[in-house]
C-alpha cells in the first residue's frame, strides 16, 4: 500500500492545545490551525459589541527595523508617513508593489527612535518578509528581524476590554489613546507591549507576550478569569471576520491584494504621496493623473432576501455583470446582510441599486455608507 502525499503540517500557535481543550472548531486559515468558533459565532460577535471577547491572534507576523536608517526603510516600504509617529504611536499603513497594488496591509509601531515594529498578516508572512528583505535589505544601517514567532498576541476587544485588562496590569490604561501603545507589567510579566489597537471596530487592546506555551496559556486563562464578571467569551476567526466586516476593515486576499490598487480599495487617505518616494508612489500618482480609479470598493446592503457572499458577481439591475463581492455575510450585530464589493465608479454613489447574483438569481442590494458599524464615541 502506498501512502498519499501528506499535506504540509498546519502551523500552530502556542495556544493550540488551549483552543482544543475549549472544544473550539478548528480550521486551516492560511496554513494555520486556528479556532473559527468556540461557543458560536453570533454569541462571540455580540460579546465583543456589547461586552468583551478574547482572541488568539498569534498567527500575525512581526518585523522589527532597527538602526539609523530604519525610518528611511519603513518609509520606502510603506505608503503612510512613519516620520509622523511619536514613540509609542501606531499607524495603519501598507506595503505596495511598484504598480500600486498591495503586498500587505500593516500596522507600523514606533517603538523608539530608529526602532519600528510592523505587524503583518499571517497568510502573507513569508511573502512579506521576502519582500522586505528584497526591497530594503540592501540598505545600510538598518537591521531587519523577523520576530513573528517570538510573541503570543492576544486581542482583548469590546466596550469592557479596558476594565478587564486593567485588573491584570498596574499600567493606567486610560492614558493609552486609540492607536497608541506602551509597555507595562501584565499578569506579572514585565515589559509587555500593550497596544490600544484591534480589528473589530470596537475599543480594545492587543498585548504581546512571550510565546512559550505555559506563559501563553496562563495569560489566556487569567484574561478569561478577569473577564468572567462581564461574561467574556473566547472568540474565533469567524467572529473576527464578521466584526471587521461590520467595521468595513480590509482583509488581505479580499478587499486588498496584488490586483487591487490603493485608490480602488478606498485607502487613499493612508497613502502620503507628498512624503517622498516610496514603492508604488509613481503608479498611484499615475492613477490620480488619469482621474482616479475605474472601480471602487463600496458597502452594499441586501435589499431583497438573500446573502451576498465572497466572490459572488455584482450585476446592474439590467443583469449585466459589473463587479464582484469581496466579503459578504450576515452582520450579527446590525442584523442585516452586508457586503463589500468592487463596482465601476458610476455605480459607487450612495443608494445606487444593484443586484448580487446568488445561485443564478439577481437579488437586489443598494450602496450604503461604510463603515456599516461605528461605535459610539465616549
Amino acid at each position, binding site marked *: 500500500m502506498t501512502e498519499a502525499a501528506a499535506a504540509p503540517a498546519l502551523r500552530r500557535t502556542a495556544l493550540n492545545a488551549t483552543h482544543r481543550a475549549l472544544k473550539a472548531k478548528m480550521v486551516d486559515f492560511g496554513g494555520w490551525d486556528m479556532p*473559527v*468558533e468556540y461557543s458560536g*459565532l453570533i454569541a462571540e460577535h455580540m460579546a465583543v459589541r456589547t461586552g468583551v471577547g478574547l482572541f488568539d491572534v498569534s498567527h500575525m507576523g512581526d518585523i522589527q527595523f532597527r538602526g539609523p536608517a530604519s525610518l528611511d526603510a519603513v518609509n520606502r516600504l510603506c505608503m503612510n508617513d512613519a516620520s509622523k509617529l511619536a514613540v509609542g504611536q501606531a499607524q495603519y499603513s501598507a506595503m505596495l508593489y511598484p504598480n500600486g497594488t498591495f503586498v500587505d496591509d500593516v500596522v507600523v509601531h514606533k517603538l523608539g527612535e530608529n526602532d519600528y515594529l510592523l505587524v503583518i498578516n499571517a497568510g502573507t508572512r513569508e511573502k512579506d518578509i521576502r519582500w522586505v528583505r528584497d526591497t530594503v535589505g540592501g540598505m545600510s544601517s538598518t537591521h531587519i528581524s523577523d520576530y513573528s514567532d517570538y510573541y503570543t498576541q492576544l486581542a482583548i476587544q469590546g466596550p469592557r476590554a479596558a476594565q478587564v485588562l486593567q485588573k491584570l496590569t498596574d499600567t493606567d490604561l486610560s492614558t493609552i489613546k486609540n492607536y497608541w501603545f506602551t509597555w507595562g507589567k501584565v499578569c506579572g510579566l514585565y515589559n509587555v507591549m500593550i497596544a490600544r489597537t484591534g480589528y473589530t471596530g470596537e475599543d480594545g487592546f492587543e498585548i504581546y507576550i512571550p510565546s512559550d506555551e505555559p506563559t501563553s496559556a496562563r495569560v489566556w486563562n487569567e484574561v478569561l478569569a478577569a473577564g468572567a464578571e462581564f461574561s467574556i467569551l473566547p472568540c474565533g476567526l*469567524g467572529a473576527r471576520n464578521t466584526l471587521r466586516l461590520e467595521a468595513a476593515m480590509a482583509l488581505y486576499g479580499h478587499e486588498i491584494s496584488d490586483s487591487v490598487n490603493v485608490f480602488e480599495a478606498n485607502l487613499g487617505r493612508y497613502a502620503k504621496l507628498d512624503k517622498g518616494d516610496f514603492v508604488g508612489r509613481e503608479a498611484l500618482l499615475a492613477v490620480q493623473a488619469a482621474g482616479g480609479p475605474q472601480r471602487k470598493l463600496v458597502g452594499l446592503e441586501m435589499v431583497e432576501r438573500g446573502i451576498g457572499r465572497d466572490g459572488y458577481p455584482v450585476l446592474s439591475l439590467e443583469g449585466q455583470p459589473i463587479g464582484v463581492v469581496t466579503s459578504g455575510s*450576515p452582520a*450579527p450585530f446590525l442584523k442585516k446582510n452586508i457586503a463589500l464589493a468592487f463596482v465601476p465608479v458610476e455605480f459607487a454613489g450612495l443608494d445606487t441599486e444593484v443586484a448580487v447574483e446568488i445561485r443564478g438569481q439577481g437579488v437586489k442590494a443598494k450602496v450604503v455608507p461604510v463603515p456599516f458599524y461605528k461605535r459610539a464615541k465616549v
Partner: protein
Amino acid sequence: MAYPTNYRYTKEHEWIQIEGTNATVGITDYAQSSLGDIVFVDLPKVGATVEAHKTFGSVESVKAVSDLYAPMSGTVTAVNDELTSAPEKINTDANTTWMIKLTLSAPAEADALLSAADYETFVSEETGH
C-alpha cells in the same frame, strides 16, 4: 444528540421520516453543528417536485452555504414557513425541526437510505472520531 431510529438518513446529512407515501424532511444534528449559527433557509414552494439526490434548497449559517439534497423524490405538500423568521430553530433541535413535507413518488427509494446506526457510523468515519 442521538439520531432517531425511525428516520432514514442521507450521506448529505438530511433525515427523512416516512409514513406510507408521506414523508417529512430535515437536516441532522451533525449538519447543524457543522454549519454553526443558521441564519437563512431557502426552501421550495408547495407543489414543487423534488428528485432524490438533487438539491431542493439551501441552508446558510453566518459563514457558510450548504445545499439541501432531497432524500427521496416527490411533491412538496408543506413548507415550514416558521424557518423564514426563525431559522435558528434548526440549531436548537435539528431532529424535530422539519423543512418540507412530501408525497413520495417512488417509496422504494427508501431502501437506498441509511439507518440511524449506519448514519452514525458514517459520521464518525467522516469526522475521524
